[in-house]
């Protein structure tokens, strides 16, 4: 140390004497030395750009968390399984017996013809999109926990919504793929090598998340009166559905009951799918620019023949009872120029691409489903009268007489059958019913020439098995 100090003083003296005759040099040297000593670390640090926010900042402010949530609703509406151009409504419609496919997408032809390859792009997109949203939900769950910038009420509301979305997306994944990873963290080191979770466990985790959400959303004021955000009622609706799927009949009936009175059925079938429908529990608000209405209408309504992409199957059309008003009011037909051929399409949503006014939103939960959930749960529990009454509520609204079914089995079949006509072309209900009731083999086996028993599960996307071999083995049949 002494040595260095010595050199230092010596040098300073030397330097001074050297620099005297060179005033310019002195200045420039000082400049250089100033630069050298200053250190450069500060210079090369930059603020994030204006269009980018660091996670930390996002969760310090309620407005930005709302924006992060808005991303989830926006994406559900536009992409992936929930809605959008490639949602379950059309894809599972052609995979089951609801829709015929006339389009040219190779991925969709595979679905329609039941020769889905593990590399199917549509299936991969569902998988990707679902987990991308689950990351978003998880980041919100983690982010609001670790911040001081939000009130408890805000935290509860945000976390409740995020938990619901996580549960909802997993419920769709498990229905389509069987065992899937239940992802609850954002740490990529973990999620990159995650293993698949058993279906039963996934269901338990979904219910656990929903129950947590139910508590968190207790008493939160609605963000909007348009029923376009998930609130406690929406959580209950999914809980009722999950309980029914798993076979917890009492819980399913109880949950549905909590909703049915608050969301009475619309008496007019033409009112059911309007944005102000009283039986809607949750809907995704349409884009305020284009299209102002639903993606469902955009896809399902046939504009011209030829030119159709999807049309209702004759099987479905012929199965309607003669006086069923739904066959009139929820189905429409269009013929080619010479009237040689007519195709029929779902006309639940009526506001097509040429409609400039916002009339309809994409409905994800409505009380007619809850009514049928309760009917099914009741009949399983042996409550014949209750089940009949729920079933008749749906039938009567459609202009049909009370059901003739009287035994437990008959009534169960009648309810399942009723679901087909009430819920057709809505988020793949028909497919999920066939699958959960073990009827896919029997019904689709006749209807689809390529049907194989292993088709009840879609393949885990091939590229995902490559990137994360922990997901192996592939679902049987692929």
């Amino acid at each position, binding site marked *: 140390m002494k040595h260095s100090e010595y050199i230092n003083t010596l040098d300073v003296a030397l330097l001074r004497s050297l620099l005297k005759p060179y005033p310019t040099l002195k200045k420039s040297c000082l400049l250089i030395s100033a630069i050298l000593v200053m250190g450069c670390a500060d*210079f090369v*640090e*930059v603020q*994030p750009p204006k269009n980018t926010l660091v996670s930390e900042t996002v969760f310090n402010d309620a407005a930005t968390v709302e924006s992060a949530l*808005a*991303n989830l609703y926006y994406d559900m509406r536009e992409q992936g399984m929930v809605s959008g151009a490639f949602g379950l409504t059309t894809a599972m419609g052609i995979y089951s017996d609801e829709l015929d496919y006339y389009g040219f997408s190779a991925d969709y032809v595979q679905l329609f013809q039941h020769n889905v390859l593990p*590399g199917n792009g549509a299936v991969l997109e569902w998988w990707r999109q679902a987990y991308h949203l689950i990351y978003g939900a998880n980041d919100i769950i983690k982010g609001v926990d670790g911040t001081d910038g939000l009130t408890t009420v805000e935290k509860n509301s945000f976390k409740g919504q995020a938990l619901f979305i996580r549960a909802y997306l997993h419920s769709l994944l498990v229905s389509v793929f069987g065992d899937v990873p239940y992802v609850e963290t954002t740490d990529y080191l973990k999620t990159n090598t*995650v293993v698949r979770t058993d279906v039963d466990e996934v269901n338990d985790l979904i219910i656990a998340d929903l129950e947590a959400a139910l508590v968190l959303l207790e008493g939160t004021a609605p963000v909007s009166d348009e029923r376009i955000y998930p609130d406690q009622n929406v959580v209950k609706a999914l809980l009722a559905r999950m309980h029914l799927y798993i076979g917890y009949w009492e819980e399913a009936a109880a949950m549905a009951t909590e909703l049915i009175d608050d969301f009475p059925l619309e008496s007019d079938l033409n009112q059911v799918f309007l944005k102000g429908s009283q039986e809607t529990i949750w809907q995704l608000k349409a884009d305020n620019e284009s299209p102002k209405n639903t993606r469902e209408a955009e896809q399902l309504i046939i504009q011209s023949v030829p030119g159709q992409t999807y049309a209702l199957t004759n099987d479905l059309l012929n199965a309607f009872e003669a006086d069923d008003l739904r066959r009139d009011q929820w189905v429409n037909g269009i013929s080619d120029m010479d009237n040689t051929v007519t195709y029929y399409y779902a006309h639940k949503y009526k506001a097509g691409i040429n409609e400039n006014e916002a009339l309809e939103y994409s409905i994800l939960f409505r009380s007619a489903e809850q009514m049928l959930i309760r009917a099914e749960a009741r009949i399983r529990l042996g409550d014949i009268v209750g089940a009949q009454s729920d079933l008749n509520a749906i039938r009567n609204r459609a202009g049909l007489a009370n059901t003739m079914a009287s035994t437990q089995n008959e009534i169960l079949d009648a309810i399942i059958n009723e679901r087909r006509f009430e819920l057709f072309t809505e988020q793949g209900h028909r497919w999920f019913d066939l699958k959960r009731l073990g009827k896919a083999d029997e019904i689709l086996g006749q209807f689809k020439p390529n049907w194989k028993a292993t088709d009840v599960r879609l393949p885990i996307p091939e590229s995902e098995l490559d990137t994360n071999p922990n997901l192996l083995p592939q679902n049987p049949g692929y």
Partner: protein
Amino acid sequence: MKKSPIYSSRTKLFLFLYILLIPLLHQKLVAGVTFDPPQTTITGTVTDMDGLPLGGVNVVLESTNQGAISDMDGTYRIEAGPNGTLVFSIVGFKSLNVPIEGRNVIDVQLEEDVTQLGEVVLNAGYYTVSEKERTGNISTIKADIIEKQPVANPLAAMQGQLSGVNIAQTTGLPGGGFNIEVRGRNFINGATDPLFIVDGVPFGSQSLGASRVSGQIIGGSISPLNAINPNDIESIEVLKDADATAIYGSRGANGVVLITTKKGRAGKTRFDAHLSTTLGKVSRFLDLMDTEQYLEVRREGITNDGYGDLLEDPGFDFFWPDVKLWDNNRYTDWQKELIGGTSYRNNAQLSVSGGNDLTQFLISGSYQKETTVFPGDSNYQKANLRSNINHQSENARFKINLSIGYTNENNKMPTVDFTSKAYSLEPNAPRIYDDEGNINWENNTWDNPLASLEETYKSTSNTLISNALVSYEVTSNLEFRSNMGFTDYRLDSYRAMPSSARNPGLGVTPQNYSHLITNASQRVSWIVEPQLNWRKDWNGVALDLLVGTTFQEETMEQLVQRGLGFPNNGLLENLAAAENLQVFSDTDGKYKYNALFGRINVNLLNRYILNLTGRRDGSSRFGPGKQFGNFGAVGLAWIFSKERLFSEGSLLSFGKLRASYGSTGSDNIGDYRFLDTYQVSGNNYNGVTVLEPTGIYNPRFSWEENNKLEAALELGFFKDRLLVNTSWYRNRSSNQLVGIPLAATTGFAELTGNFDAVVENTGLEVDLRTVNIQSKGFNWSTTLNLTVPKSKLVAFDGLKNSTFANRYSIGQPLTIVKLYHALGVDPETGAYTFEDYNGDGDINRAEDRQWIEDLAPKFYGGFGNSLSLGNLTMDVLFQFKKQKAYNTLRFDATPGYKGNTPAELYNRWEEPGDVKPIQRASGGLAGGEDLGSLQEDSNASISDASFVRLRNISLTYKVPSMRPGLDMKVYLQGQNLWTLTNYEGPDPEQPSSTRLPPLRQITLGVQISF
């Protein structure tokens, strides 16, 4: 007691300065006082051996700072004593020392320097080095060659001229871009752009184009280098090896391109006017099917798909209008119609230069207008103003050079490149205009290609490049210098899409369809680089030290938005008239960069040279703790021809062995990539702006590294009339920044991180220059450059499980493609067949794409000859490349689809037993058997695309001088005139079915100087 880091660095600093300054003191003490003898004025004329006056010759009184420069008529004037010696020097001539011996008039004749090396000085960026003594690999091209090429972009002028530099034009449209690779692709992540430095200022070469606006017309790539007028360039140097590039540290990995613009010369004011006109045409057309062939194949395809009966049903005519509704006898050569025109480029340039010994200036303005080969009145206009002022103080200690260049470009093009339509429109497609001259929609059965002329693409860019270089010679050994630069590049472009350009059958209106997409972008950067340079010559030992620092900041902004819902199409170009405004992206970026660099050059006996360079870099593109990196190189040269062994008269006139090794890096990976971020996506839900997660936090994010090794032998024979430079290099790039593929369960597709992958580029470069004949009336010289590159992926841990698994293979280059192996058409079924690599009976998986083809050139180069006979000069440059490329099967392998195809698809399988190269026709309808898409992705879609191209030919006639001082040259230049190739696609240089190939151009021009 701990030393604080500041304390110790200060110690180092003082030690450093101490070493630096000691010699100054020494000199000051020994410098004696001399008495200058009385001065007289000496005048005279400098001429060449032919007696023609030589302007711009440096005349210096030996061992003083006094100097003058000869005027254009060769006269000079200098103050000197009677006993001194005058030194006359100018590039291209041998220097001459003439003792004054009391004379007042001294006329001299300078001898042209046969030895081509002469005193050629190369710009190495922070320093200059003579061609003879360089330790690194620097390729150069000077104004005399650049001027002879009728091109609008400096990169075009470099094509075929430089070894190790592979340049390909991406489109034949004016204002488009170029791909450039210096010694191959180093990084898996793609970016191959070298660092461009214009007069000392780094110039961002990345396009600011937005694909939503310009994607369909010039591929979204708008080369900012278009702003630099090739005629303004004095020289372009390409730094290639570690010795030359390490001083650029983290930005030098892909090489460095230095562009130096012209400066004024002392002498009487000189005017230089340049006028030229260029005609351009597409040089190659495809052989497509005619109407008869097309319809035959089309009908067959539809029938093969099982729709033969529907084809006869008029109710379905709508499905196949080309077959059923359109005139089956009509034929239009759409290539001729859409890309068969002639483009014109008119160029006018005027420059004024002059000055005295102390101050020189050059001001130059140019205007250029270029049209396209498309129909319509699309054109590209460029106006450019440049000035350069050079001044030095009386005692020549203080020097300042200021250069400012401003360019305005206006590019008005159709919104789509018509090329793909030209190749694919049905030969019997309806006429473009109806009898009234309106766009014909043929009862709404087709998309009229010329309707897009109603649409507009327009881009305006303004580029300012300014630079000041200030230096002060503190003593004769020490110089302080600072380089300060500022660049401002603005791009405003829009794409207007009126409803009138769409088929009326679609029912679109200005309200529901017409839209305008705009892109307003700007990149501004400044740089300050103070430096100290100390030089000292002892007897036989020369030491040259340089130390400097860089501060640089670059900001980028881009706003891309769309206006929708216009009251009428007339208001379409006014964004304010839109009912809805949608912002696609509003981005900004900031890049800060700071560095310390230095160089130590030791030259022993002009024979042994050691060059050490180094740089410590800091960049804002990396996370905390990873921001700084060190780079450095060592270069050695031994000029063995100076050893006694080689006497004066020996055959070998010059011989040098040199080698270098060092490291550089690349931070060419975009800003802010290490942060976990949310971004505004431009969408909303219920009016709430959407914030989308876009990145996972990743602090493990650092430089890419690139180690370069080079060995070279430079030989000169017959007094340097034959020069051969041979270099071998090996570049190894590691710590590659690649998107590591993530499982979707992470929420993201990939994460960018440093991956343990090594890419190796090796190669051999040969540069040959000969002066074949040099006589009074006739000169002939030849240049040849040849590059034999080789590349391979040496290591890539976890390649198998990465997204690159299907793209790369260990031991293979990065430029490979993996394909199906085509086995021809099955004579029984008429379907394409392929090798089933994984034996699963299906051809659909990545595992079946195991056939490897490399699309990088095997070798490439240029062969040039320059001949001059009297006043006539001819330059011819051939460019050659041995390579493979996608052929036309890549974009169509099935006959029978709607849309025309190359005629080779006509030779198809028709019935069992046929042995044909093309499968049976298919209309592409559901249910039809069609493996064309696999064929497109097979080795059948690759063919040899080697070529020899007459890249440039230039004939210049120097009109005999009518009066002294007036020079006039007339020239005829051709670009891309002739190509020898077996390739059958559009252009072997740029094999694409959607972009206009490079044009064949002929230029006639005149240059007048007085």
